[in-house]
């Protein structure tokens, strides 16, 4: 989860999120270069004597045509690469459904047995000491680590959005429509997210918690559910 004064991303817990973070660093570096250049030129303009003797501007026109085009290409190529990578069909090991309601999520694991449960936020009055306010839920989404998980997201009433920033996942939940997203949790852990599409009074109070655990623990958990 994010800290109070956090500026950057949460630690990446999936390969896609690592790629996104690298791209963000790359784009930020480009932005830094442009800003420094602009600041430098501004300083030079304001401190030097105006001494140009010609109105000929051919060289600078060349520079400020080619340089922005290069910047755009340098940004577009990694961006498109990640975009197509995120969209690839990846033969998931596990498929689960996330259904948004006002104001809770329902998760369905129906690959082998029928496993369905609701996931409500733990109200602050019931929150044990040391737990995260407005982020904890009663039933977490348990997934096996290092396994390709496909999530099919939809909604029952109004628009919601299923988002877990640490896994690099955000998918809108639209009534009457199935949206697919995929992730791979690279390490065991607990990952928090919040509903990311305004959906009424308790939009801020329907979080998502994904818990990734070794496969043995996942199988143990799913076999304990009464069918």
């Amino acid at each position: 989860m994010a800290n109070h004064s956090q500026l950057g991303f949460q630690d990446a817990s999936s390969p896609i999120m690592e790629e996104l973070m690298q791209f963000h660093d790359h784009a930020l570096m480009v932005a830094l270069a442009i800003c420094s250049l602009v600041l430098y030129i501004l300083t030079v303009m304001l401190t030097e004597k105006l001494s140009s003797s010609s109105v000929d501007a051919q060289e600078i026109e060349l520079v400020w045509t080619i340089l922005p085009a290069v910047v755009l290409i340098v940004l577009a190529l990694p961006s498109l690469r990640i975009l197509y990578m995120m969209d690839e069909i990846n033969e998931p090991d596990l498929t689960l459904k996330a259904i948004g309601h006002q104001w809770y999520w329902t998760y369905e694991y129906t690959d082998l047995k029928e496993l369905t449960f609701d996931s409500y936020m733990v109200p602050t009055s019931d929150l044990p000491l040391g737990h995260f306010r407005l982020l904890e839920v009663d039933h977490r989404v348990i997934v096996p680590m290092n396994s390709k998980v496909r999530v099919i997201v939809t909604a029952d009433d109004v628009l919601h959005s299923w988002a877990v920033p640490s896994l690099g996942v955000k998918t809108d939940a639209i009534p009457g429509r199935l949206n697919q997203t995929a992730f791979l949790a690279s390490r065991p852990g607990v990952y928090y997210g919040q509903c990311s599409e305004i959906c009424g009074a308790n939009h801020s109070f329907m979080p998502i918690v994904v818990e990734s655990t070794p496969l043995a623990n996942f199988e143990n958990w799913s076999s304990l559910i009464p069918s």
Partner: protein
Amino acid sequence: VFFISLSLSLQLVPLIGFISVGLGSAVLYLLRLALYSPDVSWDRKNNPEPWNKLSPTDQYKFLAISTDYKNLKKDRPSF
């Protein structure tokens, strides 16, 4: 205004070049989508639902980063 003088038109080459590359690739990609995308049906009589004709090893996207579509094994029932 298009400058005909030699020295000036040379300076405009990068501008024309980048704009044509950009606009050209946009138009070409649009044409690719219109003609080759399985979601587009031009002939409602002879090819009404082209998306039903895809095989599991078809790559209909422009780029494939890590999926080897030709060698993709898909066991699914054939209807």
